[in-house]
Every structure is written in C-alpha cells, then in structure tokens.
C-alpha cells in the first residue's frame, strides 16, 4: 500500500547514496531571473552544457514592472537580472518567455495554464511556491540555486525523502469562504513550522469540490506551514482542466497519459506518517494579524491574548504585533487599511479576478485606498478582457496593471510604504515583505475586494 507521493517519488529515483540522500530525476524545471544567474554561472565555470534543454523553461517574473512593460526596465539592477536570464537562456538553448511575451507571467501561473505541469511529474524551481504545481497531482517543490545548477547539469537533484502527511477537509465550505481562507485556516492550525519535513496530500470532499484553480491556491500555500510541498490526487476536475492546453499530450498520447494519470492515487488504507482532519463548515473568511502566515484568524475573531501564547514565543509575538500596530485581544475587523493587492501566484488567476469583480460590480472604490490589481500572466489578462471584467473594474474606479510578481515581494516599484496597511492576496506577511516597514494582512480575493470598497477590514458576506 502506497501513498500517491510515494508512487511518484519512487518512479523518479535514479539511485540512493549509501547512508545519504536520494538522487531524484526531475521531469521539468522552471527558472526565473532571481535564483538562476549563479547557477548558469556555475555551469560556465565548469564548462558544462544543459543536460536536457527541452525539460527546462525560463521566464522572468519577480523583477518586472507592472506598468509600461513595453519600455526597457528603468531600474538598472532589475534590468541586469532580467537581461541576464535572456542571455543565459540563449547561451544554453532553453525556452524563454521574456517580459511582454504572450506566455510570460508568474511561473506558477504560467506552468499549469499551458499544460507544462502535468500529473505524475516531478517539478522544481528555485522558488518555494513551486509547491503550487502539486495541485495537478505532481511532486513539485522549491530548491536552492546550487540545486538549480544540479538540475541544469544532470536533470537530477539530491533530496532526502520527506515524511507523508494527509490533511483531510470534510464537508462543504460556507458561502463567501474561498480556498485561500481554507489554506490560511489550515496554516493557522498547523503553525508556520508545523509541517516541516512533510509532503502533504490534501483530501476530503471539500478538496474534491474545489476547482483546479482553487486547488492551485491551496497547494501554493503548503510551504507556509513548512511542508516540502503539497498535492491533490488528479481526478476529472484535473483532466478537464488540462485537456486541450498547449503542451498537454494530444490524440493517442492523451489517451495513454490519461490511463496512467487515473492510477495516480493513494491506495485505500495506506497509513500516513501524520494525518489531521478539519471540518469545512468551521472555516470563516480569514485574515492574518501578525508577521507570519500562521498568525491567522477568522475575520471577526480577536487577536490571541499574550497568556494564550507559549512562554518561549512571547517575545517574538509581542514584536510581531508591535510591528503590525495591533494589540493582543483586539479585533481587527473595521480597522482602516491603505493598500489592496490582488495578484501573485496564490490569487492571480482568472477565478480570483472573477470573484473580486463580482464583489465590486456596481460599487465604488474607497478614495483613500491604493489598489493594485495584477493578473498572474498575460493569459489571465487576456481572459479578463475577453470576459469584459476590465470594464466593470474601471467603472468601479479600479485599474488593471501588467502581469508579474509585483507587490507580493516588492522587488519592482510596487512597494507599500513603511507603516501602511496592505490587505494582500499574496502568501507572505513577513516584516518588510511588501516594502520596508510595510504591514501586510493576508486574505482571500473577497476580503480584498471588500477592503478595496470600504477602506477597512470588512467581512465580505455583509
């Protein structure tokens, strides 16, 4: 009896080092401009060629501006990094979707939407949110730059085998509760380090009922509880999503692939190293109040009091709340905010834009709030326009920006100023993540929409 993770992992083991890690074969690697230059440099220094060029795809996403991508990047250092990726892709003969290319966007949005990421694969990228691709029923995880170099050189990495964990969500999500809320709920229960050393499989009716895009959001956030990655066994939802996408197998190849994909599930009765079960009905729209993603609560809840925190963790806890300008024991619903960010590899897909638009339709943006709406890719941008969502957004006082990581980590110009509050659909509320001194409240697209309209932290169901 095996878990789905075990099956995929074992099918990719090339060798095991005596007393050491596993040499794991990687089906696909994605490279972005921030974590790859030193790896390509290393390749040059060793005089190596890329071992399997067709299995590596490059695109810049972290640094690119979200306005005026038609012009050269103004920041010379960002420009250098983006240009370096272009040159590396050229020199080593790799596919590259450069800034402005119709297939450019955030890697974790672009991979699935083009059918580059498929069930049963092993996938890596020098980026922790590579866990996103696990939603297709794959083993996908983030690696460091030394490991990027290993994959370029040999299409393999060394990994120690993680333990397995199953998170079961039973029942049905309540109305107005998104998959982001589900994920923030699970992280709050698990804590940021609680799944360290594990690879998570998400299961249960509430997961089965999620669309492909919602599953991508859930798997994306696996890393925020320390997990190596997360996956969902592929099913009709997965196959329906993949069918006809640009790089998915076609014709006979599709039938063959489908037959294999249908075998990708955990055997009945398999025991995981750890298993937890939650009830979907217990989940409310979530917000974070602190400076790690595990510090989350239902939107109408109060911030935990100091007494309820482990003694060893109290200093960090106090510092964290001080940074946020919040007090233990208080509510944050109704508090004023300054910025709203809809986007990132967590919530930058078409369904997120549909949810946001649906909420703001016929309403007006709050005057004192700056709102960045950043599609996760050009394909998402195109779809937004095809569905006329852009017009509804403009009418409500919003403006669309161009695709990229943007304010998720503020490597471009989209920075939240020090001390300002930002309701963000991204994945990290670390100190300074959205700009030095910026205060981030993580939430789903509906809470973000409600905040953009009222200028306050607002329950979107009211």
């Amino acid at each position, binding site marked *: 009896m095996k878990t789905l993770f075990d099956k995929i992992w074992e099918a990719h083991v090339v060798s095991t080092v005596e007393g050491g*890690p596993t040499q794991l074969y990687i089906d696909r690697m994605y490279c972005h401009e921030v974590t790859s230059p030193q790896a390509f440099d290393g390749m040059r220094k060793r005089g190596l060629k890329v071992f399997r060029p067709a299995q590596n795809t490059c695109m810049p996403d972290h640094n690119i501006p979200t306005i005026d991508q038609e012009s050269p990047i103004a920041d010379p250092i960002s420009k250098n*990094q983006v240009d370096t990726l272009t040159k590396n892709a050229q020199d080593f003969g790799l596919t590259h979707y450069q800034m402005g290319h119709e297939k450019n966007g955030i890697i974790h949005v672009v991979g699935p939407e083009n059918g580059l990421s498929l069930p049963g694969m092993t996938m890596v990228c020098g980026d922790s949110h590579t866990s996103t691709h696990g939603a297709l029923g794959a083993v996908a995880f983030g690696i460091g730059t030394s490991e990027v170099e290993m994959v370029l050189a040999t299409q393999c990495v060394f990994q120690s085998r993680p333990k397995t964990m199953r998170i079961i969500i039973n029942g049905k999500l309540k109305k107005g509760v998104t998959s982001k809320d589900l994920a923030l709920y699970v992280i709050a229960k698990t804590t940021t380090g609680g799944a360290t050393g594990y690879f998570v499989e998400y299961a249960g009716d509430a997961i089965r009922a999620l669309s492909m895009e919602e599953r991508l959001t859930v798997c994306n956030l696996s890393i925020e509880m320390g997990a190596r990655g997360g996956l969902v066994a592929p099913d009709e939802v997965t196959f329906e999503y993949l069918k006809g996408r640009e790089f998915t197998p076609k014709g006979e190849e599709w039938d063959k692939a489908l037959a294999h994909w249908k075998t990708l599930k955990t055997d009945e009765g398999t025991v995981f190293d750890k298993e937890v079960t939650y009830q979907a009905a217990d989940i409310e729209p979530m917000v974070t109040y602190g400076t790690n993603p595990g510090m989350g609560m239902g939107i109408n809840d109060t911030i935990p009091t100091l007494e309820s925190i482990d003694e060893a963790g109290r200093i960090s806890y106090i510092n964290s709340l001080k940074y946020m300008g919040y007090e233990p024991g208080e509510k944050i619903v109704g508090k004023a905010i300054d910025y709203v960010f809809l986007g990132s590899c967590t919530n930058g897909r078409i369904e997120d834009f549909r949810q946001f638009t649906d909420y703001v339709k016929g309403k007006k943006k709050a005057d004192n709030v700056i709102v960045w709406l950043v599609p996760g890719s050009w394909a998402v941008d195109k779809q937004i326009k095809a569905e006329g969502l852009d017009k509804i957004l403009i009418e409500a006082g919003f403006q669309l920006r161009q695709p990229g990581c943007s304010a998720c*980590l503020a490597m471009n110009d989209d920075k939240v100023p020090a001390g300002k509050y930002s309701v963000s659909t991204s994945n990290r509320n670390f100190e300074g993540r959205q700009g030095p001194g910026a205060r981030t409240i993580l939430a789903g697209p509906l809470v973000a929409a409600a905040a953009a309209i009222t200028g306050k932290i607002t329950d979107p169901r009211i």
Partner: protein
Amino acid sequence: MEKFITLTSTIVPLPIENVDTDQIIPARFLKATSKDGFGDNLFRDWRYDKNDQPIASFVLNNPTYTGQILVAGKNFGSGSSREHAAWAIAGYGFKVVVSSFFADIFKNNAMNNFVLPVVVTESFLAEIYESLSYDSKMTLTINLEALTITNNTYGKSESFDINPYKKECFVKGLDDIDYLLSKKTQIEAYEKAR
C-alpha cells in the same frame, strides 16, 4: 572548498524565533547575479536604520559578540527557497548555525554552501543563552567527526545528526554536482528504462 572537522568559536546570539529568509536577506538585495557581497546585507533591516546607520541594539553591531557561530531561535530560515540567505550567512563569516529547529530548504541551502546547521535540544539552546548571560566570550566546539557540540562553559556536550553523505562532503570539501556528474550513464539508463 575548505574542509571542516572541528571548530571552536565564540558565538553571536540571535534568540528570536521564526527568523525568516526575508529577515536574513530582504528581497531588495536579491538582484545580484553573483554570489559575492551578500554578507554586508545580512539581517539588513535589523542591522541598519533608514539612513543606513547601524542600529546599536542589534547584535551584529555589538562588539561584545563576535565569532563564526550564529546561535538562533527555533524555526530558523523559514520562508523562501532563496539560497541568498545562505550566501549572506556564509558571506558574513558564519560557519555554523545552531538552532533547535531549521526550515527544510534553508538547511539544504546552508549545507550546499558549507555552512553547518546544528540542531540542538531546546534545553541545550537555553543553556547556551544562560552561559552567555554571565560569559559573553563563551565558546562552543563543534566536532564533525564525533558529531558533538560542546558548551565549553558548562562542559556539557550533546550529539547532533547529519547524514553520512553530507558529513563526508564537509570533511572532504566535496560538492554534490561533482558527484551527480559522475552518474551520467546511470541517468541515461534511467531515462531509457522509463
């Protein structure tokens, strides 16, 4: 790479939990295309104020504490997979990071840059801070052959774990890529067989 068998050093304490990679090296310093110079920006936003003036209260600006061993709180290195965090720590001159718990990717990245993550028990960690409170020049000894860490003030040791392969890499100054490259025929055989 420099070989590592034993190291005795004074320590730099950072008794904060959940230190994430954005704190170790803020994202705005990730724009380099080489591995050099990251040490200068290690813990940048804790170390310098808005006007680039050192913040006196931060431990790296406190001349009392120096050394090649960083002793951090629980869950060190969570967050992003950026190896820049490991480059910053290595670049600053740390050879060892001691904590009661490390984030997975950080641990790998550190080892790939010959920075040894040493996991100790909560009580051992607490004792280090305790010794430090009356002896700021206390030392720790890390013995990679015997896999022990010793608090030389208390004279107490504890053993730690590292997988035998990685231990050999450290002791011999070897790197994973050399090893993988030697396995090319096996990789091709794997590809044919699938």
